[in-house]
């Protein structure tokens, strides 16, 4: 019996000490500091802080808050542009030369003066480094050899940019709102240069901007800390600090928000949002984003290449059910390649679930009893739910859909190699102009395996010389009304004939504590402005 008492005593001591430990460390229930905004956000996509290279969604937001550019678009009406560091601009009669003059007395966060020299250096640097987003600039005919002649300083505060064709002016200016055109501090960046790398090695993890907030620190997968930049030319940021904390799990984000350990949660699921709806301490804001989701049918598969089969698939998705459940609050059914908000975006959604119509089309295509086909799918929601729903509806028309689940990079690798049957994907606008999506969905200049450019149309081996011509013509159309009509026509053609089953346009939702004010999510990742946010 003694040993029993002994062990019990020991165990008792253990439990007691555990309890005591827990009680001793009861945290002070403080909300986040008054002058700091704490944002919980899954930002494991960030791989660089150099605006000439940054192209990931989360990085875009940091760039938008910390770097200035020549022009920005109005977040409430993206068709309106305004000068950021530019005071104004003119376009030559032939439409090829854009002249900018800058606001006087601008300063970088470092204290260095911001002049035309910095702007020219930054644009040239992006072209010379030639990282992923450089194509946004090089599509205007800049190359490593000619960029020094095409982008020129003409005075302390003036510069000109010369394109190779007379593009629609809105197209050129829209591209200049992108992060790749952000202005870096020439003096600072060059002082960190190593082996003629234009400061690339250093800027990857550092900061050299002039935006309303400055980057204090980026610890990958952990924290991004921004601070007010007192040298900013415009209205100063309302809060002293904005801290992004990497929290991957949505349920964890929700707990932190509910306990007021976070002010804003960015990656909640529809279920979380529904559960928070009754909480009076929490409100939400949402904005349609430039991201569209789709199924695409590889035209290398002879069955999927039949026009009737392509159309049949468009009648085999239960758009209404998906809209009401799987993407409730986080998306809106949308059957066009241009997301709403871009010039010329169509809102026509002619397709609905109609199994009989699909069956008739399949019979016409010579496959009345259906066939077997695979779908490569990333195992994330709502993609997974949508694919499973599609598997059920397709079965009703006799199509046996096998789902091949995988990690994002894995399915993407296969998609890019064109070895899929069907792929469920998403595409976000690279810059705020319709050409960004027309370029990928409706252009395929060369369908060869070793083509120089491999847009989404190429990835699905969709050969479209006519549509490609139309897309090329649309970027050169300088009359806005005519340009708009051209995109509308392309979308009508695309809806009917393309191997893309367009599903929905993403709505981004942020949930925040009720004392947070002024947070508006932008249509692009780089137009969510945290410097406008305040706390009551």
């Amino acid at each position, binding site marked *: 019996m003694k040993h029993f008492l002994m062990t019990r005593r020991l165990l008792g001591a253990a439990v007691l000490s555990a309890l005591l430990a827990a009680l001793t460390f009861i945290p002070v229930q403080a909300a986040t500091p008054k002058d700091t905004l704490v944002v919980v956000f899954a930002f494991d996509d960030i791989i660089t802080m150099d605006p000439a290279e940054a192209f990931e969604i989360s990085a875009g937001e940091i760039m938008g808050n910390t770097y200035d550019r020549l022009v920005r678009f109005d977040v409430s009406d993206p068709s309106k542009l305004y000068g950021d560091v530019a005071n104004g601009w003119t376009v030559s009669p032939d439409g090829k030369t854009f002249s900018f003059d800058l606001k006087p007395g601008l300063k970088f966060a470092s204290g260095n003066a911001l002049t035309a020299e910095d702007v020219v250096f930054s644009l040239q640097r992006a072209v010379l480094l*030639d990282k992923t987003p450089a194509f946004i600039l090089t599509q205007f005919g800049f190359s490593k050899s000619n960029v020094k002649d095409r982008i020129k300083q003409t005075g302390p505060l003036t510069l000109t940019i010369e394109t190779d064709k007379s593009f629609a002016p809105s197209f050129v200016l829209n591209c200049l709102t992108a992060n790749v055109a952000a202005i870096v501090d020439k003096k600072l960046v060059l002082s960190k240069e190593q082996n003629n790398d234009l400061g690339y090695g250093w800027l990857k993890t550092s900061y050299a901007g002039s935006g309303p907030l400055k980057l204090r620190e980026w610890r*990958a*997968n952990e924290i991004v*800390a921004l601070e007010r930049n007192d040298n900013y030319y415009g209205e100063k940021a309302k809060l002293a600090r904005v801290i992004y904390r990497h929290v991957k799990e949505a349920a964890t984000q929700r*707990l*932190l928000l509910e306990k007021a350990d976070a002010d804003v949660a960015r990656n909640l699921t529809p279920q979380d949002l529904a559960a928070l709806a009754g909480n009076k301490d929490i409100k939400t804001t949402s904005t349609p984003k430039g991201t569209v989701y789709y199924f695409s049918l590889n035209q290398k598969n002879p069955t999927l290449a039949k026009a009737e089969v392509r159309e049949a698939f468009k009648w085999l998705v239960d758009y209404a059910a998906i809209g009401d459940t799987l993407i409730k609050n986080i998306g809106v059914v949308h059957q066009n390649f241009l997301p709403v908000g871009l010039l010329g975006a169509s809102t026509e959604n002619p397709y609905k679930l109609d199994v009989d119509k699909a069956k008739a089309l399949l019979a016409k295509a010579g496959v009345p009893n259906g066939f077997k086909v695979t779908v490569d799918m990333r195992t994330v929601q709502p993609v997974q739910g949508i694919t499973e729903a599609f598997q059920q509806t397709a079965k009703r028309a006799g199509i046996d859909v096998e789902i091949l689940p995988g990690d994002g*990079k894995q399915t993407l*690798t296969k998609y890019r190699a064109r070895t899929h049957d069907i792929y469920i994907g998403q595409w976000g606008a690279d810059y705020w102009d319709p050409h960004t999506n027309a370029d990928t969905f409706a252009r395929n200049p060369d369908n060869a395996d070793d083509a120089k450019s491999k847009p989404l149309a190429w990835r699905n081996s969709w050969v479209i010389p006519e549509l490609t011509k139309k897309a090329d013509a649309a970027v050169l159309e300088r009359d806005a009304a005519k340009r708009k009509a051209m995109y509308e026509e392309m979308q009508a053609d695309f809806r009917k004939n393309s191997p893309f089953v367009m599903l929905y346009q993403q709505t981004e939702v942020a949930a925040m504590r009720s004392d947070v004010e002024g947070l508006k999510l932008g249509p692009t990742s780089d137009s969510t402005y945290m410097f406008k946010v305040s706390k009551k």
Partner: protein
Amino acid sequence: MDPGPPQRDPIPADVRGDLRLLRASNVLGRFLVVILLTYVGLLAVTFFIGRVIPIDPVLAIVGDRAPEHVVARVREELGLNKPLWEQFYIYVSKVLQGDFGTSVLTSNPVMQDIRRAFPATFELATLGIVIGAGIGVPLGVWAAVRRGGVVDQVVRVMGLIGYSIPIFWLGLMALVVFYARLGWVAGPGRIDVVYEYTLVSVTGLLLLDTARAGEWQAFANAMSHLILPASLLGYFSLAYISRMTRSFMLNELAQEYVVAARAKGLSETRIIWRHALRNAMVPLVTVIALSYGGLLEGSVLTETVFAWPGLGLYLTNSLQNADMNAVLGATIVVGSIFIGLNLLADLLYQTLDPRTRAIKRAR
């Protein structure tokens, strides 16, 4: 008359000393060879698996939108055009010079990343194993002593639950109860944002850093963040450790020396804790050391739920993006931990039981 085994010439004392030295260096040499082979094997397997997984490593760097010429350039920069064996050779020779390369995801040297991620995991794992072994061993002993009784059943069920409930779910539930509802502990993350920029990181171990600086409020805050995930990991290792303790103890309690001790009139407490447990400790040390190793690898799911920037998350994230320098670097670290802990267990083994070899032979 049987002459018996032929007598060997007695060895002079000085030669005997030399022989002992020779044997010791032999053992050491063999040991080093084993370690070296382990590392080479570890590197080779990780390297080649990394190259055959169906993920294009270039994709992680340039993203989905990069023009073809950028993709091709980066592929060449990474040396991915070279034959596999040549890539491996280049990698290994760089590692031998102490260069583990740069992670493409974080833009930092891999070892710098690991120096940051590892302390987070180390703190969690150490507290976890202290809880796991500190409670698991007495529980296991108790269950063995009261075999078939209520206590044994309770421990068994606890162990079963520990094995079968997904840690992910249990972690979230623990957060909901102890953080959200009761407010006993701080939430996910290592420390409150308030302290984020007031602390100077020396060791990367928050408890140590805050204590060194005398920042007791920050220390309490870090502890409060740590206690829940550590208890969770502790519980899972407890489940395993208590089961193993029970079975080792049952084995010991059935030995003749226990009967002899009882016959001698020793108290039951003394028999259990001083004699049986001491002997059971020998294999138990290995169990605990390996559990600790498992925790030090980083628990991906726990780290995800608790937004804990540790080694497990780092490794998983790198693997998903085919960031091979990071994966290889982290693998070497994890491998070293296991080799180190195995070595430690072996040493403890011999300290605890000088007759280890004899026992092995008898069995």
